[in-house]
Structure formats: structure tokens, C-alpha cells
């Protein structure tokens, strides 16, 4: 058993790279708690009630220009049970919420499934037709580079203006074929050395996924439903497409708050759902390990990590909370907190609230839940 685990560990290091530091082990589903495939098991929070109420109130206190709270949905899943579920007026368990950049993490899950199936490899040259010409330096780029945002391509999101690369890609002159537009940029740093957040990079990955599943919108939709949404019972999960048929995996996935919580739970449970492995072994650790690049301290593999940000980076959650998260524009969050066996979902807007304030409020909410006893791994 021990030898087996050691060998598995060695294999994981070879496959996904060594973790920079020992992270808390990922908690399994507690005995007797049913998986939330059909229904979410409900429960009462094991938390400081006053702190929990205060944090939830805070989160719904900022009202935007439409008269609605910026927070539209707030869920907490503790020990596999839904222990907090609250919506702004007009929203409920059946409301679908847009992901913005949390879509990147869903795209990452699809890549993981294709890696598990042996159709894609993290360290092989990324299959992008536009980079296959002889002598093209981009031919060296791998999915690992792309997923960790360390490709070195000149396609960073840029500022929030209308002529930023991301605005052109999703809404402007490059929007008709986002994967092609995203790939037609130069390499400006050696791959794996420089971190730059890029929706375009996820559109390149989205193109790889689309081709990997046989191409076409039907192929992508079928794969998403068959391999991810159906096993999890995340029936509301929907990805949108550009006019060329590439999924908008960089920014446009929709799901109910409960289904976002299911996706978070998949990662909390190490990629295994009710005994069935969805994501390959070690994939979640790859997701939550800060990628090696001189200017990165908070980004894993299409997931954010609550680490130590470099000068140009931002960490929304309070220092010291061990968490990794899907995050998107407007303050979308699926926060996964292994040492508290906790998933927090916050969906909505950011018309009034700021990133730092929202981060403080979410940190307060998380801190209301106790750490699991003896949960720290080697």
C-alpha cells in the first residue's frame, strides 16, 4: 500500500510537476453523505452563527444601479452538504448565472478529461494548426504552458478598454473566429518563464478541446454533457460559442449556483465523483499549485491560488486562507477550501462592491467555518 502510494506519488510528480509546498490533502466525501448528483443534501452549518450571519449580510449589502444587491447568489457547501443558500430577489435555484472567466476552469476540466482519456498530453506540443509551420517558435508551446498562463504569447488581456485584446476577441474584430484570432500572435517570452493572464490563451485551448472532441458545436456540447454535466448532475451547464463554432471557454459558461457548487465539489474531491474518476489523478493538485514563473505567485492551472502575489498580481482572499478558486469578472467566485471541507459560491455583479471589499467579505464568510481536525496532509 505504502509502496503503491509512493509510486503513485512519483508518477504524479513526473506527470504534473512537484508541488511548490505541501498543500492540505483534499477531503473525501464524508461517510453517509450522499453525492449531490440528483439533489443537494441539506444541512445546518457547523460554524460560528453570528460570524456567518454577519458575513452573509455584508455580502448582500452593496446595491448596484439596478437596485439589486451586487451579490445575486451565495452558497456554502460544508462536508458535502448545502448549509447556506441565499439569493437576491428575482433569483433562485433555477437561475442560470454567467461565468465570465470562471469558464476558464470549466475548460480546464474538459482538458483534464481529454488527458485522462489519453487524447491530449500536458507536455506534448499543443495541437494548434497555425503553429505547425517549420521553424515556428510557437511549436514548442504545450498545454501546460497554456493552462498556467505562461505561454509567453503576446495576447494578454490588457486593460479594460474597448481596444484591449480581450475586448476585440470577445466582442470586436476578432470575435468571429476567436481561436484563430487568439493564436495569431507572436511569442515574446520564452515559454514557461513569464505569467500573463489571457482570455485569448483559453480561446486557443478551447479550439484544442473542440478539435479533440471531433469538432463542431454538437461535438463540444455532447462531450460537455456526457463527460462532465451528466455525471455531476449539473444539468444547467451550458457553454456558448463564437460564429466559427469554437466554445467561448474563456468567458461564457452558464450554470445555476447549485451546479457551480457541484463543479467546485468535483475539485474539492480530487476529481472523483461518487467513485468515478472524472479528472486524471493529480489534476487537481496541478490546478492548485502556483505555476513556476518569476512574476507569478497566485495562479495555478486555470485556477487561482490564494498564494503570495507578485507586484502586478492581486489576491482577493485574505492571506493565510488555504484556498483555490475559479474567479471571473464581476466578482464571480467558486472558492474551494480543502482544510475546511468547504466550497463557497458567490455570483453576481460588481457595480458597487470592490474586489478588495468582496474578498474581505468572502474571507470573513470562510473564516466563520472551522478547520477540519487532523486534516493536514504530509
Amino acid at each position, binding site marked *: 500500500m505504502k509502496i503503491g502510494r509512493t509510486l503513485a506519488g512519483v508518477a504524479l510528480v513526473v506527470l504534473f510537476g512537484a508541488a511548490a509546498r505541501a498543500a492540505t490533502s483534499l477531503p473525501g466525501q464524508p461517510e453517509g453523505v450522499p453525492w449531490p448528483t440528483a439533489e443537494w443534501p441539506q444541512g445546518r452549518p457547523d460554524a460560528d452563527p453570528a460570524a456567518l450571519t454577519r458575513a452573509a449580510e455584508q455580502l448582500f449589502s452593496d446595491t448596484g444601479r439596478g437596485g439589486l444587491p451586487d451579490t445575486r447568489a451565495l452558497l456554502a457547501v460544508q462536508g458535502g452538504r448545502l448549509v447556506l443558500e441565499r439569493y437576491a430577489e428575482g433569483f433562485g435555484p433555477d437561475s442560470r448565472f454567467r461565468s465570465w472567466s470562471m469558464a476558464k476552469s470549466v475548460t480546464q476540466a474538459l482538458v483534464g478529461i481529454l488527458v485522462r482519456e489519453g487524447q491530449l498530453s500536458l507536455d506534448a506540443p499543443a495541437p494548434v494548426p497555425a503553429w505547425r509551420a517549420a521553424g515556428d517558435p510557437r511549436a514548442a508551446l504545450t498545454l501546460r504552458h497554456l493552462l498556467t498562463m505562461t505561454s509567453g504569447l503576446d495576447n494578454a488581456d490588457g486593460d479594460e478598454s474597448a481596444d484591449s485584446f480581450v475586448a476585440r476577441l470577445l466582442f470586436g474584430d476578432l470575435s468571429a473566429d476567436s481561436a484563430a484570432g487568439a493564436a495569431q500572435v507572436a511569442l515574446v517570452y520564452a515559454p514557461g518563464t513569464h505569467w500573463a493572464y489571457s482570455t485569448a490563451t483559453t480561446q486557443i485551448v478551447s479550439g484544442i478541446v473542440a478539435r479533440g472532441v471531433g469538432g463542431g458545436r454538437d461535438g463540444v456540447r455532447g462531450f460537455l454533457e456526457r463527460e462532465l454535466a451528466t455525471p455531476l448532475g449539473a444539468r444547467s451547464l451550458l457553454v456558448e460559442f463564437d460564429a466559427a463554432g469554437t466554445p467561448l471557454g474563456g468567458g461564457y459558461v452558464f450554470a445555476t449556483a447549485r451546479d457551480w457548487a457541484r463543479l467546485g465539489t468535483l475539485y474539492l474531491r480530487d476529481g472523483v465523483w461518487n467513485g468515478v474518476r472524472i479528472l486524471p489523478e493529480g489534476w487537481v493538485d496541478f490546478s492548485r499549485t502556483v505555476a513556476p514563473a518569476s512574476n507569478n505567485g497566485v495562479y495555478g492551472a486555470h485556477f487561482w491560488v490564494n498564494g503570495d502575489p507578485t507586484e502586478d498580481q492581486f489576491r482577493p482572499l485574505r492571506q493565510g486562507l488555504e484556498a483555490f478558486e475559479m474567479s471571473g469578472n464581476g466578482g464571480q467566485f467558486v472558492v474551494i477550501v480543502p482544510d475546511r471541507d468547504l466550497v463557497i459560491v458567490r455570483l453576481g455583479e460588481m*457595480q458597487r462592491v470592490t474586489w478588495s471589499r468582496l474578498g474581505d467579505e468572502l474571507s470573513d464568510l470562510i473564516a466563520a467555518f472551522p478547520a477540519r481536525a487532523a486534516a493536514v496532509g504530509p
Partner: protein
Amino acid sequence: MKPPKRAGGRRVLLALAALALGGASYAYGHLRGMASVGAGYVAKELCSCVFVAGRSLESCRPDVPESMDRVRAELLPDGVRGFVPALAERVARYEPGFGCTLH
């Protein structure tokens, strides 16, 4: 981390000012580009908000950044048209199972 939240508005205003001051075709071309991104943003956001999220156009509109208030929206039977009169127009169309696609 943050896709464009304020794409359009301020730049459009700046470009409008440049035009009013007699700026030449460059300013006009730039303005059209900005207006087109704004029209695309409004069409796509509102189409998805109405047809995928199931909300009313009126409830969705305040969720589009203020900087894009100049971009108008028209609800179509199967999508949303975003436009800045005489400058730009984009349409996002909804198909069940695939959400909204910008055309």
C-alpha cells in the same frame, strides 16, 4: 482576471470629442471600432441575460456597465441587436442548447 467591464464609454467619449474638434478619418475609424466593440458587448450580454439566464431586458440592462449607456439595444424574437446609430451594429442570436452567438 477581469474581462472588460468598462469597454467603450470613456474612449467613445474621447473619440467623440476628437471628432467634434475636427479630427480626421483616423478618429472616425477609431470611433467606429470602439462603437462596434460596444455594440457587440451589449448584444451578447443582453442576449445571454434574456435568453439563457431567463431575465427581462429591463432587469438585465443595469448590469451592462454605465460606460456603454450610449449603445442601444433592441430585443429580437431570437436575440438582441446592439447598435450605435450611424456607427455600428452587432446582433447576437440565441439557439437552444448553444446559447447566444455574436454575428
